[in-house]
């Protein structure tokens, strides 16, 4: 299909989502999109929607309600919204239901932006990690959490799991997994195995009267090691991701954003 056919499909669903078409070229669709919120407010965005290599992108015509660039708010350097990770969640606009899914994603993205601006952080922990390499480690960590079973997937999705590197020994450095700041277990990085294999398993079997130890609980020892190590790798890749933006500043609307620090110091200088 040609880009213009794809654009037709997107345009055909615009009205049901309340979008009003402003202009249209072969490659671009300009719309006015009101985004209602749960409290009855509605912000209206003027958006440019384009088809690029089979994928629809959207951005504000001019940065008006959103920052022009902010990785923490999932807005790329070119101003386009980073709605999903193509490698896993791609939406190919080749039929109406895909187009609807894309519109729903866009609208939800804009609803979440209002929450993010107020909270000064992304409203849920469901965002993909920053950058492809980090996102891959995150995906592997999520799979490992799934192998361990409840409550690990939810704890991970809610941001309750954190890792830190502890001192090295004969086995090299270890990675510690913390739940709400409390240590659950440590993993030898080089050997990719849990330090104390004899600790009760993290699943319900480990909480029985005669607990099954990690080592003997099926795949759980391996899953626990993977979870911690993948989270650690993800954190390292995210740090690299931010370092790549060395000279870049962003909006300063998000707490803890590595790019915002420079912004606020610049602002302080201006005020001073």
């Amino acid at each position, binding site marked *: 299909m040609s880009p213009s056919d794809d654009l037709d499909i997107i345009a055909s669903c615009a009205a*049901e*989502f*309340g979008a009003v078409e402003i202009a249209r070229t072969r490659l671009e669709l300009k719309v006015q999109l009101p985004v*209602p*919120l*749960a*409290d*009855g*407010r509605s912000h209206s965005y003027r958006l440019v929607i384009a088809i690029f290599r089979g994928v629809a992108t959207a951005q504000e015509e001019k940065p008006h309600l959103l920052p022009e660039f902010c*990785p*923490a708010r*999932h807005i*790329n*350097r*070119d101003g386009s*919204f*980073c*709605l*999903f*990770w*193509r490698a896993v*969640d791609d939406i190919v606009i080749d039929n109406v239901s895909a187009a*609807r*899914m894309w*519109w*729903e*994603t866009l*609208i*939800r*993205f804009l*609803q*979440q932006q*209002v*929450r993010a601006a*107020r*909270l000064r952080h*992304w*409203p*849920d922990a*469901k*965002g*993909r990690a*920053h*950058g*492809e390499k980090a*996102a891959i480690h995150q995906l592997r960590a999520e799979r490992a959490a799934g192998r361990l079973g409840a409550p690990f997937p939810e704890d991970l999705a*809610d941001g309750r799991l954190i890792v830190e590197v502890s001192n090295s020994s004969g086995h090299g450095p270890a990675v510690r997994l913390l739940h*709400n700041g409390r240590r659950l277990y440590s993993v030898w990085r080089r050997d990719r195995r849990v330090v104390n294999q004899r600790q009760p398993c993290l699943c319900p079997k480990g909480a029985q009267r005669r607990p099954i130890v990690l080592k003997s609980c099926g795949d759980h020892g391996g899953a626990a090691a993977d979870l911690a190590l993948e989270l650690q790798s993800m954190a390292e890749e995210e740090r690299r*991701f931010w370092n*790549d933006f060395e000279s870049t500043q962003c909006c300063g609307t998000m707490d803890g954003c590595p790019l915002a620090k420079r912004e606020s110091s610049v602002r302080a200088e201006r005020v001073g």
Partner: protein
Amino acid sequence: MAKNWKHDRAADHIEKKIKDVETVTIVDYVRDMSLENIPANKAFRVDGVHLYADILNLTDMLNVTADEGVTCHRRTLRFLNLHYRAVHRILARCDARRVDFHNQRLHALIAKPYNAENDAEAKRVRRAVAIAQLIIDVLHETGDDDEHIPDADVRVGIDTGEALAVNNGRRGGREPLFLGEPANHAAKMSGGGSNPGIYLTNNARLAIGLAEAARPANTPLTTAEIASCQDAADLGVSKETIMAEWREDLRKNPIGSFEFSRHTPPLRTLDMTTLTPANTKRQESASVYADIDGFTAYVARHIEETPEDVVRVFHVIRAELDRVFTCDFDGRRIRFIGDCLHGLLCDGTVHTTDDKETVSTATLCAGALRSSFELALEKLGDEGIDTDSLGLAIGFEFGPMTITRLGMQGDRVRCSVSRGVLTSEAEQTRCSGDETAIGPLAHDAGTKAVRDLFGSGRKVKSLDYNEAVEVLAEKGDDTALAAKRAAFSTPAIAAASERIIRPYSERK
């Protein structure tokens, strides 16, 4: 119907309320003026002495039994009723004005002698001290051994200065409400410790020639200091007279026993004027306190030059908070205590309260109060009215609550007291102007979504209605899901709002 908050509904109401107070009159309060039935757009600047008397052992009363059952509430209400009646006698005899009695705390104003008289302020403070001591002495004997009702231990706080008297926001509510430092600081003195006695702010100490105290809330008046105030004030009524009148009154108008029944939710439909000890409501509910943070400082900043803005800001915010609580969430407002709203919410049936739903509703309501508060500030700001440094601190708790009216026939005072009421107030006081806190029992009774939201610290920042609905609905809270569904009339938008998205970030 789902209880909810809508931006446009709030905006319309706020705009109407701003119109109410386009023109505001401020009058200096002098002899023979009435402080009753003050119109919404008028205030009196009252130079007077504010007296707060806290009954310290109310908490003990509420905790005499392990369970907060019927006996516990019956005794507590009887305890308060006996003491309220005695205080009523004292204030009537001493020409002091009762502003309010909420739970363990009496607020009274001593406005006489007026400033036309020489040395009027010192005379008022001495008079207040003498009245305070009379209250302490009388309440030390108004218990009832037969009914396991102890005497009351009382701690009094006193401050003096200018405050604004405004309408109290209740239809048919005659008593004024006072805004400003003397009311607030007197309350801080009475609430600022657990030792009985009479505590004056440095302001009040200086007015009667006492030295400033380094820590006035830890410096009770000495017996000699009190005696000299009593001599100077010469109240002309003794403890014995008051006790005799009080006993005579009890004989003629026995309190009767407290009979409890449930009100079929919502509590909004409860007509408080029908309540008496024999018709007292008692049920599991949520108690909510919402306090305008920074308002006392705001009044102090404006009372001389622009007191009109105090009346405007207060009228608009209060009316809007009241509307949200009552109309949007079907709650029962108990009262405004200065700049603070106290009310109760209950979901369920005539027989049982739906604990989870009640706590979820209270959470959404807290968010809605903040949304309306912020919108009110925005619209007042648009009118060029200063709203700097104002915030809203919200606390709530869940548990068995009582609602009744106490005191003398013809002059009954609303009362809603329970452990949960006291906890909700305490939760509110540990919040800054952008925080909402939940009490431990509400936390336990709430859905998992509610518990996750408030976390182990039981407190959350900048929770508005949109955020409350979203964050609870995300975790499957039924009350929030219903509110969220009702918010989106277009099916496509409703579907979008339920989609879980995983946005990404690229290097490009």
